[in-house]
């Protein structure tokens, strides 16, 4: 109990520190000015969502191979957290784009891929709500989870190549990061990864508790 409280505190401190660094420590970028600072939240969120989806993929595969429910709990928890981080990418993108390039949305490769990724994993979550039986739900959604993650490199690859063929001037990263910027970026990335682990564990424990409830309800019915 105390350990998890300490970890939560650590995550909060890291998040506060990375926000401070993004606002005050990082130097102002030359071409885009102040608004570029959104990058320190936007880009690592994208990378963290991918990490969460990777964890979900591992959970799906391990569930199919071992049939232990805990892997299904991990798969759904990390998928939900991944969607949350993806949502942050999709919300901070337009907030960055409007002041920087005058448009709310640009079909830039990374943002477009993130949008498709978001749709894919929202579909995964919708699928889960459409199957009542817990075991069937776990097996069927694990299968789709495998398909979804295998699609990720293909989505990124095909959209990136499509943008290369039809280029446009909107670019969501600084071309070369100066050393201070790089340190702020890594701090942000670290804090978001720790947050991801915290949220996954919190969601996982909820899933484990639901299973406990189900078992007890069965026991009660049996009497």
């Amino acid at each position: 109990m105390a350990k998890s409280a300490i970890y939560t505190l650590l995550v909060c401190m890291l998040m506060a520190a990375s926000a401070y660094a993004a606002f005050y420590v990082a130097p102002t970028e030359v071409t885009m000015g102040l608004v570029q600072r959104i990058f320190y939240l936007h880009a690592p969120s994208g990378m963290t969502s991918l990490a969460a989806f990777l964890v979900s993929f591992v959970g799906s595969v391990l569930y199919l191979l071992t049939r232990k429910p805990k892997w299904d709990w991990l798969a759904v928890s990390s998928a939900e957290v991944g969607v949350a981080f993806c949502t942050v990418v999709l919300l901070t993108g337009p907030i960055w784009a409007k002041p920087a390039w005058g448009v709310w949305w640009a079909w830039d490769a990374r943002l477009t891929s993130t949008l498709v990724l978001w749709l894919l994993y929202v579909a995964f979550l919708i699928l889960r709500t459409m199957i009542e039986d817990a075991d069937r739900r776990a097996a069927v959604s694990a299968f789709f989870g495998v398909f979804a993650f295998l699609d990720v490199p293909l989505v990124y690859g095909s959209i990136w190549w499509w943008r290369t063929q039809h280029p446009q001037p909107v670019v969501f990263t600084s071309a070369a990061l100066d050393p201070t910027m790089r340190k702020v970026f890594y701090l942000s990335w670290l804090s978001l990864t720790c947050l991801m682990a915290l949220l996954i564990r919190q969601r996982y424990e909820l899933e484990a508790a639901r299973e406990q409830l189900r078992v007890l309800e069965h026991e009660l019915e049996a009497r």
Partner: protein
Amino acid sequence: MKFFSDTAALLQKEIQAEFRSHELLTTASIFILIVIVLFSFTFDPTSAESKQFGPGLLWLAFLFSASLMLQPSFLKERTNDTLSALRLAVGDPFAIFLAKLCANTIFLLVTQLLLLLVFAVFFNVNVLSIYPKLALVFFLGSFGVSTTGTALSAVSSQARMREVLLPILMLPLLVPVLIPSAEATRALFEPEHALRWDWLGILIAFDVVFLTALWLFGEYLLEE
């Protein structure tokens, strides 16, 4: 080997069933036709623009049609629980998937090649000279659509709201098929009639990855 004879037998069954009823091919073709006609109201289908927008619209029509057409693939096995009978009849459950996805690829390809001619007439595009190259692009695309669609038909048939669930699952997954297929088709419509192996490469990669994934994990979908 028993696996190949099982697959061949099931494939024959699927094709014969379709030949008898013609349901799938007819409805799919009419649906694609309707979508093409409706799309043509949304922009001026003069020759120059059709070469730009046409391929994308064509492939969108194909994808929408497939997401409806592939639904019965596993759904029909739920009546009278013929799926259990199939599982008992074959040695490797992958034979069921392989037979269905081959049949679906053939059905998709036939409707697409047919509607390509209608598209050529409506939008004033000469397709006869590039028909073989187009057939290759359509085959690679259809194989990808069919592999994922057949697998997802098995997924959605076990869920509620399956009619709208299948497109929700399929369409985002098929973005890496839509983009290369539309781009490769567009490149063929251009005067150089170039076959774009960069795009076809992505299609081939998609087909290989998902066929393998279905081979490895498909049996978990067929359990009770």
